[in-house]
């Protein structure tokens, strides 16, 4: 399993052609207390860069962009019911989607952990 990062402060952990995506700890800290999460349903397909969800805190709204092209296998519906959980463990149990990656070549355009750490420092 390898984890990549985007400039929009999302992470994607890839396991074969399946992947889990979410927002980074840094993104969650910057947003503050999350009060609203909107996610799309399983079966939706998307291209890299498409808006595939919305996360809003008390302070601000933030769109979720697809890090690579794919298809939604599962959305973390628990976050829709209790948005504050997103602040608990954004890089772990508070993932947003499990997806099937349909353009694995696009992963090479993303950052590794070191590059992302350099971005947010």
């Amino acid at each position, binding site marked *: 399993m390898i984890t990549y990062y985007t400039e929009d402060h999302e992470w994607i952990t890839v396991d074969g052609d399946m992947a889990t995506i979410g927002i980074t700890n840094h993104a969650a800290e910057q947003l*503050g*207390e999350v*009060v*609203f999460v*909107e996610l799309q349903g399983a079966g939706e397909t998307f291209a890299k860069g498409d*808006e595939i969800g*919305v996360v*809003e805190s*008390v*302070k601000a*709204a933030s769109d979720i962009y697809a890090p690579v092209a794919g298809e939604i296998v599962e959305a973390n519906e628990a976050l829709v019911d209790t*948005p504050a959980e997103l602040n608990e463990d954004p890089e772990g149990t508070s993932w947003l989607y499990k997806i099937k990656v349909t353009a694995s070549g696009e992963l090479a355009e993303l950052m590794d952990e070191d590059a992302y750490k350099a971005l947010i420092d």
Partner: protein
Amino acid sequence: MLKKTPLYDLHVELGAKLVPFAGWEMPVQYPAGIMAEHGACREGAALFDVSHMCQLTIAGSDPAAAMEALCPGGLITLKPGAARYTQLTTLKGGIYDDLIVTNAGDHLFVVVNASMAEQDLEIMRAGLPDHTVNPLTDRALLAVQGPRVGDIVAGIFPQAAALRFMQSQMVGATRLSRLGYTGEDGFEISVPIEDAETLARNLIDAGAEPAGLGARDTLRMEAGLPLYGNDIDQTTSPIEAGLGFSIPKRRREAADFPGADRIVAEASNGPGRSLVGLRPDGRAPARAGTEIAAPDGAVIGTVTSGGFSPTLQAPISLGYVPAEYAAPGTPLNFILRGKAAPARVVALPFVPHRYLR
């Protein structure tokens, strides 16, 4: 170069997240977070640094009468030690800024928005050529707000106990004013810069939780209080904004303030549009700039402030809609990310005021 308030070092020490605001580096929140800071104000006491706001004095012959030429508020009727909310109005009946004017005995004590201070000083100096308009650059302003502040502030300044809502008193070099912008009982304390940090620490030690601009915004939205630049500006009249309470009958009849034609006509006949409270059925907040549509789909207005209400645990918005859609209960839609989200007009404030009258 951003300006720093006299409490800057304290904000850093307390772990505040600092952001640029109206030319100042201000705390948007502390480690407790906006929800907790908001809760402290509704349930206990919260301390806000509002030193970025411009404090000024107007001195000269009968300054209240002179200021009435620039504002629709009732100022000549203010007794010494009484404060009033009013606006600087434009010739077209819009609002240059909103402000609090206090009768300080032989002069007026005035507090205006940080972002509008330069403009306001120009307007007042031009409009009051025979008076001295003097910004107080040697003072900080602390707002301490919430149901527990009566005891907290009286513990430091016993004179505070005698003050009621919109009353103000000097205690030595410090001015205590029982008012604020959160909907709660509270004080704004104008204090010499050299005493500001000690006072802030004493208030915190007595139980006031430091709170930032984030909580200040959610608190004033819940209280239905308009924010200059968001909900009111040069295009909106005081009547449209629901501020008619601040224009007494004497001023309406005399119609002797800037923009009186429009403002008096709107006060008599009703405004064409009104600032209303809106609550969506769903959980998505509708923030400033969100379009408001009638049930038939026509866009009829725009959200001017919006977000999440920590007290109601639900989204709330303020926005202008035409008069025929302004009644509480009217069903409308927010256009959120291209889709209609059902909402309803509700009476303001969203959360009742609890001033000590």
